[in-house]
C-alpha cells in the first residue's frame, strides 16, 4: 500500500510541476475573464474638442468600446469595418466608442484620412491607459475591444484585431433585446 502511495505522490508532483508553470501564462487571461458578465464601469474622458464626455450617455445601447492608436497597425486595419457596422446599426441602438491612446495630431490626421469613421471618439494618455486597465487590459496591448449589452453588462473582450463577421455575430443577438 505504501508503495502505491509513493507513486501517487510522485504523479501528483509531476502534475503540480506542470500546473504551476502553466499558471504563469494564464494570468493575463484571468483578469479579462473575470470581467465578463460584470457591469461596465463608468468612465470619463475628453473628446477630440477637449470636452469631457461621460460613458453614461450611451447607456441603453449596445456598445463596442475600442481602444486604439494611430501608430498601431492592427488597430487601423479593423477600424473601417467598425465604421461600416456602426453606419448600418446605429439606428437600432448600436454605438462604437473609440478611445484613442495617442496624441491629438496623429488621431486627427488619421480620422481626416478615413472620413467614413463617424462614431464618437475619446482621447487620452495615462488616463486612457487606466481606463483600459479597469476594462481588463493588464499589459496595455492594443487594439482592445469590449462589447457591452443594453443592460450595461460586459459580454465580450478581445485583445487584438476584431473581425467584422465576429463583431456582427456578437452584436446582432444583443440588439434584439
Amino acid at each position, binding site marked *: 500500500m505504501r508503495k502505491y502511495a509513493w507513486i501517487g505522490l510522485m504523479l501528483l508532483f509531476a502534475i503540480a*510541476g506542470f500546473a504551476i508553470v502553466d499558471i504563469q501564462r494564464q494570468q493575463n487571461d484571468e483578469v479579462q475573464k473575470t470581467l465578463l458578465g460584470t457591469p461596465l464601469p463608468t468612465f470619463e474622458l475628453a473628446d477630440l474638442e477637449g470636452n469631457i464626455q461621460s460613458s453614461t450617455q450611451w447607456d441603453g445601447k449596445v456598445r463596442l468600446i475600442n481602444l486604439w492608436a494611430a*501608430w498601431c497597425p492592427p488597430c487601423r486595419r479593423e477600424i473601417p469595418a467598425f465604421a461600416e457596422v456602426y453606419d448600418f446599426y446605429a439606428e437600432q441602438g448600436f454605438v462604437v466608442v473609440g478611445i484613442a491612446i495617442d496624441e491629438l495630431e496623429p488621431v486627427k490626421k488619421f480620422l481626416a484620412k478615413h472620413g467614413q469613421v463617424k462614431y464618437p471618439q475619446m482621447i487620452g494618455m495615462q488616463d486612457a491607459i487606466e481606463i483600459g486597465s479597469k476594462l481588463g487590459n493588464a499589459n496595455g496591448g492594443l487594439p482592445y475591444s469590449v462589447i457591452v449589452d443594453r443592460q450595461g453588462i460586459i459580454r465580450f473582450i478581445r485583445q487584438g484585431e476584431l473581425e467584422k463577421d465576429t463583431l456582427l455575430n456578437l452584436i446582432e443577438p444583443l440588439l434584439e433585446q
Partner: protein
Amino acid sequence: MKLSHKVFLLALLCSWAVSVSAQTPIQKLIDQFGSTQEEPLPPDQAFQLDMRRDSNGNFELRWDISKDYYLYRDKIKVVYFDAELKVNKPVGETISDEFFGTTQVYRYPMATPARFSLPDDGQANLTNLLHITYQGCADLGICYPPTTKILALSDIPLTSLNLSGPVANNEEVEFSVQDKIVNELSTKSLGVMVFIFLGFGLLLALTPCVLPMVPIVSGMIIGSQNRSATRAFLLTSVYVLAMASTYAVFGVIVGLGGANVQVWFQQPAVIAVFVAIFVLLAASMFGLFELRMPSKMQMYFSQMGSKQRGQYFGAALMGSGSALIVAPCITPPLVGALLFIAQTGDAITGAVVLFSLGLGMGVPLWIIGTSMGKWLPKPGLAMKRINALFGLLLLGVAVWMLDRVVPETLTLLLGGLLLVGGGIYLFSMSGKLLLWRGFAVTIILYGVLILFGTSVGSGSFLSPLAPFMQTTEKHEELPFKQIEKLAELEATVSEASLKQQWSMLDFYADWCVSCKELETFTFSKEKVHKALNGFVLMQVDVTENNAEHQRVLKHFGLYGPPAILFFGPDGKERRSARLVGFVSEKDFLRHLAHLQERG
C-alpha cells in the same frame, strides 16, 4: 523492493524532473508551431532594456526583444533635462506599413546597439536622469503604448565601450550556458525558478557524483538499527535541509564576495583533497572498508544531551559536508546562480534558488532514507553489483577531476584502465545475468580502445581511434601569443594595425569547459588555421585569475572566459563580432568570413 519497482520509481522521478525543467523549452517549442492561444507578453518582458555607459559620457542602448515582437526604430527617444538627444541608431528590418509607409523595426537579436552621448561629456552628476522612450508591437497582432523608462546615470552599468565600428546589420551573438541561466533568473518569476532548480537538483542527483552518495549516506544515517519511520524521515530531512542551506549560504557568500568559484576548484591542493575523498568513497563501495562515523565523533555527539540530538547534529553535519563534496560536479547551474548573485547583488533570489537546488538533489535520499532502506537491495550479490557500479562511477569522477591538473595522456590511461579493470570486476559478479555481462564487456572493450588509442597518440576520450581516421588532419594548436598584461595587449594590437592586420584575442582558462571545447573542436581544425592566416593571435590565460587578469577582463566588460574578441586593421575592436561561448568549426568560419566582409 524488487528491481523493477525501483526502476519504475527512478523513471518516474526522472520524468518529473525532466517535465518541470523542460517546461520552458517545451513552451517555446509549442509557441514556435504557432498556437492560436498565444498570450501576449507584458511590454517589460517583451522588450527588455539593456544599457551601458563608459566614463566619457557615451552610452549604448540595446533591447532584448522576444521572438515575434518588434520595436519601432523611429520611436526610440532619449530625453535628458527636457532636451531630446541625438541617438545613433543601427539599421533595422524594413517593414511596409499602410499608414506610415516603409518603416524600420528591430527584432531579436539586436546585436548592434544604438548609441548616444551626453552633452557634458562625462562630467555629469550621476543622479541625473535619462528618459528612454520606446514602443513596439507583437506579430500576433497587438501593439503597445510607448513605454518610458526613467533611469539615473548611476543605474546604468559602467564599462568600456568601443565607439567606432560599423553600424551593422543583425547578427547572432552567442551566450554561454551560464549567461543564459543568469538571463533566465532575472526574467522569470521566483516561483518558476524554484521549480526549475528543483528539477536541476533532481537531475544532478542522478549524476555519478551524487547518486552513489545515496546508499552510503542512508547507511550512515540510518545505520542497521531499526528505527521508526518518523525518525528516519526526520534524520534524512535534517540532512537534506542542511545540504540545501549550505548551498544557499555558500552561494550568497561567494556571490556577494564576487570571487570566482571555478578558480578554487582548480587549485591542485583542492583537487587532490576531492580526489582522495572520492577514492575513499569508492573503496567503501567495493567493500574494502566500512564507512561509518568515526566512533570518537559518535561519542562526542552522544554527549551533547541525548543520543538523539547527537544523531541529528551528525546528520546535519554530513549534509553540509556532502554539499561541498559534490559541488565540483554540479557546476553549470551552481555557477549560473552564483554569477547571478554576483552581477545583480540579489542575494535572496540566488539563495532561494540554490536552496531549491539542494532540495532537489536530496529527493532520492529522502525517499530511500524514509523507506528505511527497504528499497535498497538486500545484502548479497545484487547489492554488491550495484555498489560495484557506484564505486566505478565514483572512481570515474575522481579521474575526471584529476584531468584538470594532470596531463591528458595520464588521465586517458587511468580512464582506460578503470574501464578495463572495472569491467572485468563487474563481469565476475554478473553471474548469469546477461544484461550485466553485456554491459561489462562493452566497457572492457571501450577501455581497451582508449588504451590502444592513447598509445598511438590520440588525445581524446571520445574518439580514441582518431589518429587512424584522417591522416591529413593535424591536431595542432593555434600559435597564440600569450598575453599577460593589458599594456602588452594594446601594444600588440597597435603593432598589428600598423601592418594592416586583423587581430584576435582569446580568453582561456583551464577550468573553462567551453574553452577546451573550442580548442578540441574548432581551433584544432586545419580550415580554421587557414582562415586565421594573417591574423595576429593573442591569448590571455586567466586560469589563475590574478589581479592583472581581472583588470583585463573588466576592461572589456567580461566576467570570465570564454570570450573571443576581434580587432580590425584599424586597431579598434569590432564589438558586435564578439563570441562568448563555444562555436563550431562551421560557425566560426562563417563568422570570420562575415567579419572580414564588413571590414
